[in-house]
């Protein structure tokens, strides 16, 4: 066991208390499944932490007829259960129910998944990108709401003075799917992730995770699909377009090399479109 360390640990019961600790330099502790591995990455654990699990407002999922609000401290397991059966959120549910392993899913939070800097394989990132989620932060200057793409791009800077509090989703999707490629099924990180969704105007949204350092929308493919003669979702045709418009630079990494991550995208897109077509709203 590590020698006794004088570490400050605040279990905040309100957001105000958490922000006060944050201003004093405390790092946010959610489920700890990422942070507790810092020492294995050669990084010391923070000297001061503020835990969010006692803040009721951050631990609930609110489902309204036209929108959903997810607290940042909601775990993957709770998120999957809460949205199970909600039309349009099939992909997000699949992401929450298939990431990691059952023990981790009971602990790891939505906020932790989005805020683990330098973690490229976060399942919820592409799933929330196709939902066009908005991320609510509490910053030292007050609350702030921004699109998930911007959040993911700028999170290094943003998180220096903020806590992610909630994720806001519109209920404008008719179907979605989340396709991941792990090398085994024993809870390893996915090599590549493709999330897809179709909105009420029959527009297809596609996002990719784990291939580049930060998940992003596949706008080149989305545009190519829209430019097609008649809008029709076809797995084969979409996979051909995916091959033609593959503008990803695969990252290297323990599980797979960059070229492989890039190369598996068209077949994953094919599977994804097939899954979309079987989903309630489109079937």
């Amino acid at each position: 066991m590590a020698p006794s360390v004088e570490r400050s640990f605040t279990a905040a019961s309100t957001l105000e208390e958490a922000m006060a600790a944050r201003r004093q330099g405390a790092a946010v502790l959610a489920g700890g499944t990422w942070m507790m591995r810092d020492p294995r990455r050669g990084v010391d654990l923070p000297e001061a932490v503020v835990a969010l699990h006692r803040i009721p407002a951050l631990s609930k999922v609110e489902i309204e007829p036209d929108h959903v609000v997810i607290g940042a401290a909601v775990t993957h397991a709770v998120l999957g259960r809460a949205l199970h059966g909600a039309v349009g959120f099939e992909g997000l549910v699949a992401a929450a129910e298939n990431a990691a392993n059952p023990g981790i899913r009971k602990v790891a939070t939505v906020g932790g998944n989005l805020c683990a800097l330098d973690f490229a394989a976060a399942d919820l990132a592409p799933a929330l990108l196709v939902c066009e989620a908005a991320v609510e932060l509490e910053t030292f200057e007050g609350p702030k709401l921004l699109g998930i793409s911007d959040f993911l791009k700028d999170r290094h800077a943003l998180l220096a003075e903020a806590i992610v509090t909630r994720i806001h989703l519109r209920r404008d999707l008719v179907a979605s799917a989340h396709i991941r490629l792990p090398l085994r099924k024993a809870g390893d990180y996915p090599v590549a992730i493709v999330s897809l969704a179709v909105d009420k105007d029959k527009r297809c949204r596609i996002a990719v995770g784990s291939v580049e350092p930060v998940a992003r929308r596949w706008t080149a493919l989305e545009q190519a699909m829209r430019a097609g003669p008649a809008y029709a979702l076809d797995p084969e045709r979409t996979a051909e377009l995916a091959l033609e418009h593959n503008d990803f630079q695969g990252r290297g990494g323990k599980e797979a090399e960059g070229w492989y991550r890039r190369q598996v995208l068209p077949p994953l897109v094919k599977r994804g479109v097939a899954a979309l077509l079987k989903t309630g709203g489109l079937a």
Partner: protein
Amino acid sequence: MTVTFQLNGEDCRFDGDPMTPLVDILRQERFLTGTKAVCREGFCGACTVHVDDEAVPSCLKPVGLVQGCAVTTIEGLSFGSQALHPLQANFEAVDAVQCGMCFPGMVMSLSAFVRDNPHASRPEIKAAMAGNICRCTGYERIVDAVADCLDQARKAGQLVGGIHV
């Protein structure tokens, strides 16, 4: 910092670094060595314990987060001369255990699973084991034993609420 929690039904107090992984306190301070620290990364499941009845890896649980919680380890699942948990009895009956390294974690994960999923199918049992790695058995006997256990519980009419300790 002082952290207090229930450990196998008794009060437990820890004074020290609140970011200490729970597994280290169990093994090094409480000598509950049934809980194994193998990968320390959340991948192998050998350190699984129940925290407020949920099966979670104790290697990634800072003790500060268990303040006020009830922690159960493999030692607390059935005390001394008490009957074994039905899963443990089944594993023993079908000789499922080989080196035994993974089994405390396996039992802790699966005991929570059978409690919550009395009607689980074979694929569901396998999915529930995704976070418990066994290097010896090839898993099939374990899956058989869990399926038998659920069958027996169904036949014995213990369906509602699943299997309880």
